[in-house]
């Protein structure tokens, strides 16, 4: 790579001090410009990539190797349109760059990932970054998209104009990585020839603030200048300057200038932005050549349908239906196979060992507890395949677009729908994704309702109940899918209803403005989707093999001891006598009005760890009742369960009520912990447990009692 010679000397001192330790690079750029794809390609990690803005919301550190085999640290960061952060994820970027995060070292060098198809807007952030005066490498990503849009971007011209290395790449195809690594391996990186002068109207203010920030806050001169520029565009000093309050002197200067401008009536924030864009515009004229006139692109034509106020909904509905239908129709075979394998394994152990506690632990505790969970692996895979498809093609942002109208009816906007849609997979990444929401109140409301969306952990519970409710092969997959759709709809409407309620009572605020970029459609990358699916499958199996296994073993012990005094007691009598049975009996008065007995109560307690534990608990508790020699599938064991008076326990009504309970109840410790972390208090997770589980109980009570009185 050729260097403009005048620059190298300026960087020498800095580079020399950094050369003997591991250099730290930060990946910075607009949302969806391909930072994480590049980060993964460099470090070999598998961070989540998706074709919508706001995939990454937390920094992630990885290691790559220089040309000479030396380690280099790379930090992947959330995307941002500007250093003047508006949402928590953008604040992560700004705080890491300014060295305000105690857990993250301040990056020495910055890789600006730039979307070549959209150079002008992407260079705005680069322009701000160059102000920081740190060595910068520009990765000109998505060159293929730019070419497809009829743009010819001249990397060499951009390199000459900016004075920093500019490397054209196509991160998804692995192109340009060698050049990038080569640039990263350089001991010396040129500092930018930054030819932007602060507009004359603002210059005295910037100079005065910069001086004060250097003298009173001890900032380095260039950082002080960048921070001064941010302070002048953002009134919120806490947001800009971090938790340390500004010194009185700086405050005074800022106040003075603000007053002066206000009385003059000039909008100097706009002046600053315009002046940056003017400078960028001049640059782009030399760098970007439009090879052909741009008509509506393919994405525009697709959007005319998918974002249509009628057809958009038809497509959205069709996708959801296809998802639920395939969960039932495609998974049948593999599920039966897994079930027959676990049954055979049980029989094998039963045949090989004499009767005793160890055999019971193996068959009833371990196989009985973990087997029914593993059975649902195919369905989980299908769900994540669909989620991956939506995320990869770019449909996610379109779903947010069509959902904006219903969301605005409840006082939120379409942006909140992306976290909610993500919560169909798992509430935890969904709650993390709320960091992209600018308005703090909206963000909290979204966090509060996100766990109501039916996550993948509920899938086993629903499926078990549907299998018990609608026996075997007599019922078509369509009917089962319909029932499942009902549960998903119930959760979704619940989330909307509560959002409406919260926005009206606890968090009153005007309907927020939404401005969101819709990325171009991309063909789904099957390898990427497959990798994400395998990752989820591994996680699911790991969970089944650790937590669920452990809980099953403990639950088995709690249902086995103390032993019933009469050795000839039936398994049900034995469980009733055990510790777990006693606990279940304590709970029974509370849940009897819902049609649940103490054995279901045990499942409700254990599934506080995670919802799918309910299925394994049912496996441990009711699996025991099945005869030792010919084990039955769990759903048949459930159907055979009786109340003491001989009435069936799992009537269709009870199955339905149980599903409704799991739609609403907050039964996930990990979610509680994450909500606590994201809201920084115990108040909201506790409130969430209370309101969700309370609603679940009330709703179930009403449905059960009404169903009973109607004769079900």
């Amino acid at each position, binding site marked *: 790579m050729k260097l403009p010679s005048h620059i190298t000397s300026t960087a020498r001192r800095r580079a020399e001090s950094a050369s003997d330790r591991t250099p730290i690079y930060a990946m910075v750029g607009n949302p969806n410009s391909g930072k994480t794809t590049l980060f993964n390609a460099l470090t070999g990690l598998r961070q989540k990539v998706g074709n919508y803005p706001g995939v990454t919301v937390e920094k992630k550190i990885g290691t790559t190797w220089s040309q000479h085999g030396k380690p280099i640290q790379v930090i992947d960061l959330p995307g941002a349109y500007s250093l003047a952060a508006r949402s928590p994820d953008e604040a992560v970027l700004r705080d890491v760059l300014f060295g305000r995060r105690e857990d993250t070292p301040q990056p020495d060098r910055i890789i600006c990932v730039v979307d070549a198809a*959209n150079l002008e807007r992407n260079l705005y952030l680069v322009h701000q970054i160059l102000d920081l005066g740190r060595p910068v490498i520009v990765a000109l990503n998505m060159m293929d998209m730019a070419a497809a849009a009829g743009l010819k971007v001249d990397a060499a011209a951009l390199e000459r104009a900016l004075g920093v290395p500019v490397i054209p790449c196509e991160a998804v195809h692995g192109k340009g990585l060698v050049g990038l690594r080569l640039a990263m391996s350089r001991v010396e990186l040129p500092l930018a020839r930054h030819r932007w002068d602060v507009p004359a109207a603002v210059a005295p203010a910037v100079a005065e603030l910069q001086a004060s920030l250097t003298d009173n806050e001890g900032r380095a001169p260039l950082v002080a200048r960048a921070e001064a520029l941010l302070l002048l*565009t953002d009134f919120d000093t806490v947001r800009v300057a971090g938790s340390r309050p500004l010194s009185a002197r700086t405050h005074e200067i800022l106040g003075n200038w603000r007053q002066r401008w206000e009385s003059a009536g000039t909008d100097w924030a706009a002046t600053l932005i315009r002046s940056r864009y003017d400078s960028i515009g001049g640059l782009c004229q030399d760098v970007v050549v439009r090879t052909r006139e741009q008509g509506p692109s393919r994405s525009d034509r697709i959007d005319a349908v998918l974002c249509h106020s009628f057809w958009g909904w038809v497509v959205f509905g069709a996708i959801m239906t296809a998802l639920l239908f395939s969960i039932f129709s495609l998974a049948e075979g593999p599920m039966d196979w897994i079930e027959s394998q676990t049954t055979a394994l049980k029989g094998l152990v039963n045949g090989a060992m004499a009767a005793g506690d160890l055999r019971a632990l193996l068959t009833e505790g371990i196989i009985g507890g973990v087997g029914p969970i593993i059975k649902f692996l195919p369905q989980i895979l299908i769900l994540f395949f669909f989620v991956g498809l939506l995320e990869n093609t770019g449909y996610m942002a379109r779903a947010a677009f069509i959902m904006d109208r219903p969301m605005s009816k409840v006082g939120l906007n379409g942006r909140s729908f992306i976290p909610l849609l993500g919560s169909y997979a798992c509430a935890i990444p969904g709650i993390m994704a709320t960091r992209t929401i600018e308005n703090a109140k909206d963000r909290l409301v979204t966090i509060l309702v996100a766990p109501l969306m039916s996550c993948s952990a509920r899938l086993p519970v629903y499926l078990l109940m549907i299998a018990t409710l609608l026996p075997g092969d007599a019922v078509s997959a369509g009917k089962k899918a319909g029932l499942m759709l009902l549960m998903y709809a119930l959760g979704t409407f619940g989330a909307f209803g509560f959002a409406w309620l919260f926005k009206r009572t606890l968090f009153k605020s005007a309907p927020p403005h939404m401005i969101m970029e819709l990325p171009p459609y991309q063909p789904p990358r099957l390898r990427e989707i497959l990798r994400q699916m395998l990752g989820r499958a591994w996680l699911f199996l790991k969970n089944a093999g650790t937590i669920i296994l452990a809980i099953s073993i403990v639950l088995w012990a709690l249902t086995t001891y103390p032993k019933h005094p009469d050795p000839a007691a039936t398994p049900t009598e034995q469980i009733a006598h055990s510790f777990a049975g006693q606990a279940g009996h304590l709970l029974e008065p509370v849940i009897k009005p819902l049609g649940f007995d103490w054995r279901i109560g045990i499942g409700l307690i254990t599934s506080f760890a995670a919802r799918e534990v309910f299925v394994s608990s049912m496996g441990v508790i009711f699996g025991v009742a099945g005869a030792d020699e010919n084990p039955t599938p769990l759903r048949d064991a459930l159907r055979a369960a009786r109340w003491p008076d001989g009435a069936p326990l799992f009537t269709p009504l009870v199955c339905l009520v149980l599903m409704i309970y799991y739609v609403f109840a907050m039964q996930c410790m990990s979610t509680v912990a994450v909500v606590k972390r994201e809201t920084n208090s115990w108040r909201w997770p506790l409130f969430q447990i209370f309101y969700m589980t309370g609603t679940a109980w009330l709703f179930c009570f009403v449905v059960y009692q009404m169903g009973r009185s109607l004769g079900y």
Partner: protein
Amino acid sequence: MSANTQFPLCQLPIGATGRVCHLAGDDSFCQRVREMGFGEAALVTKISGTTTSLCLVNGTRIALNHSAAMSIVVEPIPVLGQVSGLREKR
């Protein structure tokens, strides 16, 4: 072009192109809109949407909800080339 042809973005017909005249709304919203290259003098083409609008600005599709589209005032550009005064870049 007279000032009385200016109207909020949400009223721009689908398929039409307009030029942003000024931004209403609170400071932080205006700033973000400008930073996204959607500031005064930018050209927008509406792709679809009634309450939520989908616009093409500078080659990017940007979705705006109703209240955001209300705060962006545009003037329509009749047919490019007829009004020579509208040609200059920004």
